[in-house]
């Protein structure tokens, strides 16, 4: 079993000009590890991170989009797997941190800990699907995960983390949305 922050530290070494869409615990860990203007954390409703990511990927097919979603969030928008697979953006990488809990809402369990999210993504029609439970394997393959044609899906099997501080005013800061748009739309 991995830890989310360890996975994200590995991921951060490979991120350059991608948009990274993240919410709740994933967002807290990610912005702590990789504070950058191209982080997109104003999601507005749980589960829609993947849908925002799809819109960003459609609008900038020349750039890559990485979605960092929790398993509870994905369960609130499972249909997105079918939508994303049907639209098939080559530039979308969809990573789901599976800790089997609603961590931001008190650590209660998701309805079933046995959900095979990678299997669901495969069945929906994602171009490539991965299932990571060992950090060394993730380290070895993350570059390939990020570079290949999407939509790419990967489950990261992680432990629930220690209690986090959720600074929502910062995550949802309008100034950050404005800065993101300027940077994302920059023609390079």
């Amino acid at each position, binding site marked *: 079993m991995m830890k989310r922050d360890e996975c994200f530290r590995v991921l951060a070494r490979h991120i350059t000009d991608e948009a990274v869409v993240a919410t709740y615990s994933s967002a807290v860990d990610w912005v702590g590890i990789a504070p950058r203007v191209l982080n*997109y954390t*104003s*999601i*507005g*409703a749980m*589960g*829609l*991170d*993947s*849908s*925002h*990511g*799809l*819109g*960003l*990927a*459609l*609008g*900038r097919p020349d750039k890559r989009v990485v979605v960092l979603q929790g398993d509870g969030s994905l369960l609130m*928008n499972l*249909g*997105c797997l*079918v*939508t994303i697979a*049907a*639209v098939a953006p080559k530039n979308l990488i969809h990573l789901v941190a599976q800790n089997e809990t609603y961590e931001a809402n008190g650590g209660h369990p998701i309805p079933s800990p046995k959900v095979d999210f990678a299997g669901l993504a495969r069945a929906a029609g994602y171009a490539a699907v991965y299932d990571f439970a060992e950090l060394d394997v993730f380290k070895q393959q993350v570059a390939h995960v990020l570079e290949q044609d999407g939509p790419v899906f990967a489950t990261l099997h992680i432990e629930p983390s220690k209690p986090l501080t959720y600074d929502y005013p910062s995550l*949802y800061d*309008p100034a950050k*949305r404005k800065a*993101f*748009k300027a940077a*994302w*739309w920059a023609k390079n």
Partner: protein
Amino acid sequence: MASAVTDAGLLSGERIIAAIKASAVEYVLSVPDITTSSGLLAPIARDGDLRLIRVCKEDECIGIASGLSYCDKRALILIQHTGFLDSINAIRGIAVEYKQPICMMVGLLQHEPEREPRASSRYGVRIMEPILGDMGIVHHLISVDADIAKIQPAIEKAYNESEPVAFLIGRSPA
């Protein structure tokens, strides 16, 4: 059947689609709605100038449209009023609190076109305008051809001022 005959020619789907295109909309995001099924969604699906994204649930549209807006791409969300009601939290967060240009075209399922929506015998239709009003979302009833002229300026305003707008489709476009 009598209603369909009476409605024929009162609201042109072709003219609505022309207004959508004139508004520089590139993407239509949709879950099928029987009010707009044959008059709007079917011709949009065949239209080479608009890219139709079929989604599984209406709130996905709100996230996708928001993402596209960060790329200066315009989208129109084509859904049923039941889908709007189901998506209120996403609309609250993204469209209203984040002030995103979320443009929605909402079919009023089983609405009686001769009545104002607030006077509909259908509870779900009756509450639409009060909810939109309470949320501060600009909305327009599109029930006859003369209403179609409201569409382009409203979409332009939504994108220029970064705010949501809703068009309530009060009868099936022909």
